[in-house]
């Protein structure tokens, strides 16, 4: 039953994802890609659980490596996206609603 529930969640999330991104102006494609790339770093949650096991096991070291990599993805991804969007923002403040 739990398996069915998980698949159920997955399918609904897929439809939601398809609906969310339909009409995006092309200048936002790069920030959208790097912003959603940061979200895919959610795998850090799984990495934390693996790394938090009894230390010294192979599993915990794999978890540690995964935490490092996922943290780079998450922190770097959000910051870089924010930097890009900050440059667009300035323009919007001067000339609102250009799009």
């Amino acid at each position, binding site marked *: 039953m739990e398996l069915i529930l998980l698949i159920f969640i997955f399918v609904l999330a897929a439809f939601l994802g398809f609906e969310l991104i339909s009409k995006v102006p092309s200048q936002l494609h790069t920030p959208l890609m790097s912003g959603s790339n*940061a979200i895919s770093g959610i795998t850090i949650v799984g990495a934390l659980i693996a790394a938090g096991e009894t230390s010294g096991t192979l599993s915990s070291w794999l978890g540690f490596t995964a935490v490092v990599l996922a943290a780079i993805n998450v922190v770097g991804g959000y910051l870089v996206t924010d930097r890009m969007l900050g440059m667009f923002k300035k323009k919007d403040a001067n000339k609102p609603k250009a799009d």
Partner: protein
Amino acid sequence: MNTQMLINLAYIAASVIFIFGIKMLGSASTARKGNRLSALGMLIAVVVTLFDRQIISYQLIIAGIIVGSLIGLVAARLVKMTSMPELVALFNGFGGLASMLVGWAEYERITHITGTTGHLNENGELITQTVIDLSHFDAFTAATIALAILIGGVTFTGSIYAWGKLSGKLSGRPTLFKGQRALNAAIAALIVVFGVMMTVSAPHVGTGQIYLLIFLSLLLGILAVMPIGGGDMPVVISLLNSFSGLAASAAGFVIGNNVLIVAGCLVGASGLILTVIMCKAMNRTLGNVLFSGFGATVQKEGKQSDGELKPISAEDAYYVLEAARNVVFVPGYGMAVAQAQHAVKELGELLENNGAEVRFAIHPVAGRMPGHMNVLLAEADVPYEQLVEMDDVNPTMSMVDVAIVIGANDVVNPAAAEDTSSPIYGMPIINVYEARTVFCLKRGKGAGFSGLQNELFLRPNSRMLYGDAKASITSLVTQFKEG
């Protein structure tokens, strides 16, 4: 209410925040807020996970978060805007590898759970012994571990290879060899067979099987990206971004975690949509981008054009520009390579002060990432309303006095509109050849990234301004200031 339940409620909250975040990223006025909102969702998910009952030791976690965050912080601060595509590719690869490791770690954990069994000996004493307890390792877990390793592994090496191509460490040309497709298909088939075998034989899955699966997945990532040319990397990165989401989702299935499944799947689906949008902009199918080896076999096909390249000096170019009343810049990857965006912006201002109407025409797939040119021009403070999209600029092209093509090639190649034998026939282009005069800034006489000869350069109204784009533009700027 126990802790585990509260954690799950917080995961639902984080998922909702991600959904709003992605939604807001799709609109210019809310994008920045959306990104910050989604970062908040991530923070919530990370913090509540620390209370998970499976976590008993914090040293590795704290060390890992500090190291990873510092690296991410420094990379994000130091990167030049022109290197953005490479960095996104690299981050993406790390995300994929992390998901692969989560799958692998779960395999290691689940095959090392111990339990105690006991039996009475002939004297009636209880004898206990520790044994490996594989009862948590079912077929479903085995299948999802295989998926997480496969998708994560392909995402990792595929992204790293794309990073190499984008940063110029590897050749941008497609690498083709005989039997390539057959080899890739064989490896993919082998992976499927192994995955099915693992699923069927669970819980008795040997470490050797896992290692082999990891190796094959990593190999497939490299081989799959190898035949794709540098010009198609935006599509590849977008697709790999979608994959990294799916890898996270697969890892979510492995450990039975909802927030991983939802967030990963959202990224997977939205990344796929973005990929399709980009393929449409090039009038090609995703299959054509991935498998055709586009750009490796040119020149032989495509009709021979007559005409010659007519160079122009910066001084002559200045006189033409000085008289121009309507100027359109068409930036491409060459502008990014030469870091010319600030000089271009300055030239645009000078032309405007000189009484000309100045616009920047952005092709949807110009550069190495979707919206690449928008980012660069925004960095240089080019006013927003001067940026025009392809469909808006094309009808007005015949009124344009001078079109300045800065390191763009395929997106202005008239063969796409006229030459049915050209591999890019049918791709929408910016019709600069209709302008009265076209200046093409180019480093040398070689063909562009796709390897195609560009007929535009041979047209009677085209003039070649050879040299580094930044140096050429700067010398024009200097002449304007002196004149």
